[in-house]
């Protein structure tokens, strides 16, 4: 062991000289073939090719289809129909219902996640026994597959043998069959799954608040609420905002667990509507236009958030 560390740290040792020669340009390393050109060919070109094939091309292709009456299920050629798809979608009251449902879902779900996640972070941001273990356990839901989560929550919600009704003593309460409750049920699953994410980011924000500020506030006789709203919240706000941006974007495109849990019209989120339009009705052109409308909305909402984020940071 001593021999090894001597070799590692002694300046004259061959390992160190070797590393130094590697770092110098035009040295042995270059002659071995790890030149800038090789790096470009090996790593950068495949990445760019991958991006173009799987991201850029579909993006542009779907933009083009959105202006056509293309149907992927037929061999009929696509006809350019201009903005007709967009006009049809924006005039369709059913589509607007999907948007309203989605908006409601995003608000319930993100609010829930922020409240629960931030609350958990506040509870964890102190010396408690088994803190690491508790944090890890709380993070577990986040690591599951959304489809799996949807499937087992369907069991948990089951009116006759579901464990939720059993524990809450709700008898045969219909979580998913009741059109008024179903959206909440879907949102609760999302809150359960993604609160840990907000918690994780909040925890990082909270632990970055200097302790001496709390001490100064304590000496200044500030109460817990005053301290929270004047010190904690303003300092955690930027990172909390980032969590909200991420969660809003994700909630906007929620599909898997919502699709599995409920087939109510009241839980038909835009992603589900989009899926049906594209792959059950095969209206490829129309659904491409729909996807673009959703994209524009998400970008717009994110922009508003980012503006707030920058303002929170600048203050």
């Amino acid at each position, binding site marked *: 062991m001593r021999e090894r560390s001597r070799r590692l740290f002694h300046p004259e040792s061959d390992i160190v000289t070797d590393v130094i020669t590697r770092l110098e340009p035009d040295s042995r390393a270059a002659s071995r073939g790890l030149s800038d050109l090789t790096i470009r060919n090996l790593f950068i070109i495949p990445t760019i090719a991958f991006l173009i094939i799987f991201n850029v091309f579909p993006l542009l292709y779907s933009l083009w289809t959105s202006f056509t009456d293309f149907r992927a299920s037929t061999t009929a050629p696509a006809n350019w129909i201009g903005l007709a798809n967009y006009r049809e979608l924006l005039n369709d009251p059913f589509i607007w219902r999907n948007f309203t449902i989605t908006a409601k879902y995003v608000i319930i779900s993100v609010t829930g996640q922020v409240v629960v996640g931030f609350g958990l972070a506040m509870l964890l941001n102190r010396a408690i026994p088994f803190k690491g273990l508790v944090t890890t356990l709380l993070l577990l839901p986040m690591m599951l597959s959304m489809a799996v989560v949807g499937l087992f929550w369907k069991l948990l919600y089951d009116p006759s043998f579901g464990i939720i009704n059993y524990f809450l003593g709700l008898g045969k309460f219909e979580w998913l069959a009741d059109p008024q409750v179903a959206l909440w049920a879907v949102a609760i699953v999302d809150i359960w799954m993604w609160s840990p994410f907000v918690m994780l980011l909040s925890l990082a924000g909270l632990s970055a608040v200097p302790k001496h500020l709390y001490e*100064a506030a*304590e*000496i200044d006789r500030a109460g817990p609420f*005053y301290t929270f709203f004047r010190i904690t919240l303003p300092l955690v706000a930027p990172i909390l905002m980032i969590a909200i941006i991420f969660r809003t974007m994700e909630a906007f495109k929620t599909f898997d667990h919502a699709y599995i849990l409920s087939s109510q019209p009241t839980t038909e989120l835009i992603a589900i509507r989009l899926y049906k339009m594209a792959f059950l009705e095969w209206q490829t052109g129309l659904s491409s236009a729909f996807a673009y409308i959703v994209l524009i909305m998400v970008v717009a909402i994110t922009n508003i958030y980012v503006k707030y984020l920058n303002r929170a940071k600048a203050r």
Partner: protein
Amino acid sequence: MARVELENVSKRFGGTRALKELSLTVEDGEFFVLLGRTGAGKTTTLRVIAGLEKPDSGRVIIGDTDVVGKTAAERDVALVLQQYSLYPRLSVRGNLEFPLRPKVRKMKDDEIARRVERAANTLQITHLLDRKVERLSGGEMQRVSIGRAIVRDPRVFLMDEPLSALDAKLRESLRVELKKLHQDLGATFLFVTHDQVEAMSMGDKIGVLRSGRLVQVGSPSDIYERPRNTFVARSVGSPPMNLIEGRFSDGKAEVNGFSLPVASSASAGPAVTFGVRPENLVLEPGAPAEAKIFDIEDQGVVKILTLDMGETRLHATVPAGLHIQRDETVRFGWKPDRVLTFDKETGQNLAVA
């Protein structure tokens, strides 16, 4: 306003004993400076008084009451920290109002405005009131944090190295301002620092702290002229006091083979440590001792010489006008009545003990 008293306060952090039976009294309206090195327990002392740490044993008395069981908020003390601790995202005004706003104070808006105005005037930060604290310079930040202490009219001001993070010039001017503030307010100040210049220039009284114990308490001149032991002797004065090991023989000090006169009042002991401040070393042709000039540091008003006596090096402060070269051999002596003698083993000042 109130006096502060610590009685046998001990505090332990894990295995380290930060404070060991510390007793300390700050009189009402006094500017008390606690001087000590890093880890001496200065900050812990302040935090115990402020109520941010609970002492393991002992009593903390503010005014007439034992406050050990009370929270920081109930003690009505103000604490100014080295790192400013300004509330972020608030304006200067917001920061100054912060301690007055909490509901428990039930303070009226015009009273708050009046106090903020007064504090801002005192510290000359009126023009900064509407600026965000992130946009202030270090000196301005520290003014604001002092202002936040003033607005409250606390019973005691506690200051934890408030000037250490500032540059030298600013530090000097704020030092003067703080002293003036203390005179104007007539409040009790407990000021903690590791900087002996700050301690000497600001304190009515200085307490020298060493590993959780007070070594000596006294006026700046007491500490400077009559240090209780070699530790205190080296803690104040720049450059610090010269300590030379030697012995008494025939009423004279014998140092490195030279025989130097001492005042008769000096207590005798065979082997002692002589302490003499650099300004009390005198360079003159016929003087009894000899040394080589090792280094010259020209400070404008004075020159600080490092004298090489072979085994020991001494500092001497001489007028800047004195022409002298490095490696030159000089004769020097000392002012016999300004020489202190310390026990060689314990470091105790023999005249005091």
